[in-house]
């Protein structure tokens, strides 16, 4: 009898566990730690916006493993990898769910003779199919046509602004539609080296101003030789990566800055350079796009994000990848963080030493030079809804945008941008009071103020009649009382 009871209880417990387990399995699907920051700068977990679809190694194509690859470029349906350690460029064809080898480029025709690369760091392919390869150790950028015949070489600039004693080591390259090449070189801190379509050096763009404060100067005077060597030197920024967006603006990243300059937007780790070289990135978020806001410390990892590559998509969303914590940050065109995901690790979707990030459509490709692999990340339903909402808003279809944002809210009720999006749509529909409610929920003061102003105007217009009546009563009633009293007095006097 007693035993039966125990068994009964055990079965009940099991049943309860089974009934409660769907929550657990749902959680297990969240393989990739995705989060956003709220207004207080605290990380809030969110559903996955991107999930890793596949990871490929060189050995999967039968060409031997990649060896410390440094650069990647994706366009059309091709992904090009600069396999630095193996002195070759690997061209891959991107299918919907696979990557396949097209060819391995390790020689090219230099006139009649064959020529090879020496640790190529980056590759770029223009719309005609011409290759631009940073042949780093050979101190040149090689321009090949699509049949791998040499068109021209971009060599060390012969100019007084370029220090001739320093080796020219090109590391990153992009070429705009007009054929102007923008090259980043190792130890070049004057900005982006620009070449004309003919291959002539035309100057630098985007050099940041050297800031030098009095306090720094005094501090430096007081410190010893050894301390001075330890200090950061007053050199301008050295960019570490470059990418072109759909309009031909160059996005660059840098990881040389002082930590305390990040949050007040002096460091500018991501910049969008126009042709004059000035930074035109829009920053309307609570914090500028700097990667992680809450740095924390643990497992030997500390300090701010070091963004090492950026890729702007056709819908003006841009993604940047961080070397410190191996996370990818997505920002919309207003500079607001959409989501951050990824991390340091061996699992698919995590990275050990990411070096390059690129995109085909909305798919992201990440090159890892420690695991020598390429990871493909695809949007989840959640990510698609966010993209749709942003796209609908940009097109001016505010109702549709609000509908998408409501879908996003169903998946993640902690998503601040969705509240802002719905509020904005309501504002456009002249539903001020509801808009105010949405803005107040997430403390969007600026937007709230706008909605409040319109609501107040409407309210006063509606109630103006009462005001006038009230005012009239205030004026007329005492006057009538006075006259009545006066008349009464006059009557009684008579």
């Amino acid at each position, binding site marked *: 009898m007693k035993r039966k009871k125990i068994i009964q209880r055990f079965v009940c417990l099991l049943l309860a566990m089974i009934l409660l387990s769907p929550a657990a399995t749902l959680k297990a699907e969240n393989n990739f730690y995705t989060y956003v920051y709220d207004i*207080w700068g605290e990380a809030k977990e969110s559903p996955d916006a991107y999930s890793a679809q596949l990871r490929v190694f060189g050995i999967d194509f039968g060409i031997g493993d990649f060896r410390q690859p440094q650069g990647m470029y994706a366009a059309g349906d091709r992904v090009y990898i600069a396999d630095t350690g193996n002195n070759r460029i690997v061209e891959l064809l991107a299918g919907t769910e696979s990557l396949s080898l097209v060819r391995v480029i390790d020689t090219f025709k230099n006139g009649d003779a064959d020529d090879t690369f020496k640790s190529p760091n980056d590759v770029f392919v223009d719309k005609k199919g011409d290759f631009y390869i940073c042949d780093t150790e050979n101190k040149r950028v090689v321009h090949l046509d699509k049949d791998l015949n040499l068109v021209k070489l971009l060599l060390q600039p012969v100019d007084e602004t370029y220090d001739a004693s320093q080796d020219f080591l090109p590391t990153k390259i992009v070429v705009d539609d007009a054929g102007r090449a923008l090259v980043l070189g190792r130890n070049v801190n004057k900005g982006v080296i620009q070449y004309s379509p003919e291959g002539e050096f035309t100057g630098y763009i985007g050099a940041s101003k050297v800031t030098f404060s009095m306090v720094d100067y005094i501090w430096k005077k007081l410190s010893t030789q050894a301390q001075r060597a330890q200090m950061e030197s007053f050199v301008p920024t050295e960019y570490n990566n470059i990418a072109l967006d759909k309009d031909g603006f160059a996005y660059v990243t840098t990881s040389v800055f002082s930590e305390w300059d990040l949050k007040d937007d002096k460091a500018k780790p991501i910049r969008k350079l126009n042709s004059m070289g000035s930074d035109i990135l829009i920053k309307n978020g609570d914090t500028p796009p700097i990667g992680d806001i809450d740095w924390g410390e643990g497992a030997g990892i500390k300090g701010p994000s070091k963004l090492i590559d950026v890729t702007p998509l056709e819908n003006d969303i841009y993604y940047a990848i961080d070397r410190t914590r191996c996370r990818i940050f997505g920002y919309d065109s207003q500079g607001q963080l959409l989501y951050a995901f990824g991390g340091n690790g061996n699992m698919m979707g995590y990275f050990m030493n990411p070096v390059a990030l690129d995109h085909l459509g909305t798919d992201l490709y990440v090159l890892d030079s420690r695991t020598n692999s390429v990871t493909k990340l695809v949007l989840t339903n959640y990510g698609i809804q966010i993209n749709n909402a942003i796209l609908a808003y940009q097109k001016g279809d505010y109702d549709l945008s609000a509908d998408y944002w409501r879908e996003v809210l169903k998946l993640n009720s902690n998503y601040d941008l969705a509240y802002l999006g719905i509020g904005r749509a309501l504002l456009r529909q002249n539903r001020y009071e509801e808009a105010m409610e949405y803005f*107040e929920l997430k*403390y969007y*003061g*600026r937007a*709230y*103020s*706008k909605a*409040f*102003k319109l609501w*107040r105007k409407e309210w006063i217009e509606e109630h103006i009649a009462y005001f006038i009546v009230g005012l009239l009563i205030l004026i007329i009633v005492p006057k009538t009382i006075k006259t009545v009293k006066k008349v009464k007095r006059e009557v009684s006097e008579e």
Partner: protein
Amino acid sequence: MKIAEKINKESLNEYKRSLRFSLHVIGHPFDGFWDLIHEKRGSMAAANTILIAVLLIRIWRTQLTNFMFILYRPEKFNVLMCVLEILVPIAIGCVSNWCLTTLFDGKGTLKNIYMAVCYAYTPYVLLQLPMIFISNIVTREEGVFWSYMDRFTDIWIAILILAAMMMIHDYGLGKAIFAAIATAIGMLIIIFILLLFFSLISDGFAYFISLYKEIVFRFY
């Protein structure tokens, strides 16, 4: 019945008069503070009333002001801290000021100083209460006025306190400013000693607690 007897009409009138006197003080600080102390025009009851009003308004202010102007985190809000942020500086300031002014032949007693400081906070009550309401009917752009008003309140209170110091202790302006700076330093010293005291006490406790634990572990 007993209470009603206690609060007889005479003392209630006295209380009302002393409370109304605060309106005179903020407009005429020199005459006001002189009369407040030396002519016995103020009362402790009125001073306490003003201080309680200040504390209440401070709490309401954080809660009811529109979020465009004061953004507070509901989950991190602590009424006690909100109150102590005003009470502790006033308490330490009064003590520090009294300690120093007795050395520099100030005439005021601790009671005088406390009463004068409380009366000096009257503008806070008069200005911040309507500001809570106003913050809810202005936009962000019009709110510049709101932050100016905030600054204005602080400056007014500072001037009143300085005037109070001059009148209570019978100081000139230079000496009053010097006393104010010395008071600030004195406050820092008091806080330092308090911290030292508490950390020593907690260390002492920790010693006995670890001793107790040691014994417990040994014999169990």
